């Protein structure tokens, strides 16, 4: 019995170390974001900022003209919401089709879609950049929405297909015999059954878009500036010594995604392990 309680406590110690390891860097960026500029780089480090310098968020030193922290949040919101909705709508129909409609060559199509999810975006951005410049999609929201389809559309199709797989086919067939049309079966029977799945898919597509660097960095200039590219932008220009202000932008950028994840914790695991585990 003693050895059991010993191995039990070792397990809890490891768990504690794991939590600290995961959380400490996040704690540190939050702490840094509340320090004065000289405090952020002081040795010995300041563990708890006192008093907290909220002004890093509200009215930071002019390291970048104009400051894009808060407007970046709005731009990110528009980019990510639009991109997620676009991919979700197309993905809903396709996911349903591949799951329930006996499409010829379903497996080959799904493999192909998975391989698109794996394309190196740095290769794709070269032609996309040139094409978008020709047709005037640089620095526009729709440009970002379309570009994000590269990772969001395959994700949505595969994810929603796996959710539609859980809907019993008998149910849909009996609805069909009761006189529902094809589209009604999809819209009125199948879709309401996977509401939770749709919400999960949407929120993950949203987070992927929100966290994207390459497309938002290279396909926008002045009009659209997502919060995710504010830090690389500051690093590139003079002002790198303002670690506290950069940290504040960083915190702003992950608050929305972490909040969503907490709301959605029930579905988190499913969304994160898509393609690997299907149930």
């Amino acid at each position, binding site marked *: 019995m003693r050895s059991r309680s010993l191995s039990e406590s070792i397990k809890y110690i490891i768990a504690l170390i794991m939590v600290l390891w995961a959380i400490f*860097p996040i704690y540190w960026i939050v702490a840094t974001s509340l320090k004065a500029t000289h405090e952020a780089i002081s040795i010995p480090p300041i563990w708890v900022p006192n008093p907290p310098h909220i002004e890093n968020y509200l009215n930071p030193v002019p390291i970048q003209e104009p400051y894009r922290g808060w407007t970046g949040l709005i731009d990110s919101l528009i980019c990510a919401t639009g991109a997620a909705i676009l991919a979700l709508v197309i993905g809903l*129909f396709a996911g349903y089709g591949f799951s329930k409609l*006996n499409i010829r060559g379903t497996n080959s199509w799904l493999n192909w879609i998975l391989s698109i999810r794996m394309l190196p*975006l740095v290769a794709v*951005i070269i032609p996309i950049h040139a094409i978008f410049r020709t047709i005037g999609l640089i620095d526009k929201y729709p440009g970002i929405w379309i570009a994000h389809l590269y990772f969001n559309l395959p994700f949505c199709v595969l994810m929603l297909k796996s959710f539609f797989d859980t809907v019993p*086919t008998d149910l849909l067939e009996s609805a069909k015999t009761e006189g529902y049309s094809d589209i009604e079966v999809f819209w009125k029977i199948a879709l309401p059954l996977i509401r939770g799945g749709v919400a999960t898919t949407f929120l993950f597509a949203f987070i992927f878009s929100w966290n994207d660097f*390459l497309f938002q960095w290279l396909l926008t200039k002045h009009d659209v500036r997502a919060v995710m590219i504010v830090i690389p932008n500051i690093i590139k220009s003079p002002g790198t010594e303002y670690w506290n202000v950069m940290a504040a932008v960083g915190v702003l950028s992950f608050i929305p995604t972490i909040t969503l994840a907490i709301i959605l914790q029930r579905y988190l695991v499913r969304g994160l392990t898509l393609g690997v585990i299907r149930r």
Partner: protein
Amino acid sequence: MRFKVWHKKGRYAFVLPCIVILIALVIYPLLFLIRVSFSVQDLTTGEIKFAGLVNYLRMLGDGRLINGVRVTTLYTVGVVALQCITGLIFGLVITGLRTKVQKPVLLLCITPVLISPILTGFMWSQLLDTTFGVVNYMLMRLGLIHSMSEIRWTLDPVLGIVTLIVVDSWQWTPFMGLICMAGLLSIPEDLLEAAQIDALTKWQKFKHVTWFYLRPVMLVGLLFRAVDTARGLDLLYTLTRATPAGSTEALAYYIYRTGFEYFDMGYAAALSWILIAVVSILTNLLVKIITWGEVR
């Protein structure tokens, strides 16, 4: 089970928009990429000229390309090896916790996955800084090093890659851990009971029962990680971009620089095909393992 009776052609309308869009997103840009790779832009006039195999021939003597392939290989292999182990520990430890504790611990440990790689790199470059970084400060206090700049985590050519691997694992271990947990859940209960009755040791049980169920899912998860590591550059951009002489310049980052810092699109396009080839090989492996059927 799929529908037996269904409107013949109408059902294709469901998948058609998706397929058409994906074809448009893939085929045309990739053809365009081929064209770009055969051209050279005159930087003074901006004129784009057909250049034949010039860009491809340039690759033959390019030391940075060889270095890029080397870094990408080391980085990817390191990530896969380390996260296989850390993911396994993560999964086994969290599964072993009491239900009440399990949920909050899992939620806290998952957080890194939700943070963008670009921000992860920024966070860690701050922690690992050689003048004010907390990590070196702690090591100094513990008496393991004598000066703040003794361990140059992100600046040292060799250590740089190790740092990349460790920080990447900070972010993605929870992903592998979740996969491991799902694999553990898929083990039939009577099998575990049988192992109990046969009085297998813990190690035997792991080797003969647990690992049998874990292996397939872990393999797929690691292939996902391999592809994402090989094609990614976000983390490098904020974490090790300052490393001297491009010693942590992975292939993807080299392509980015060639195209968008030196504006040599033709050569960047040619280089892209190497990365696409690498990723395709990994993806093919993945597709061979994954089955989309309703068996599982």
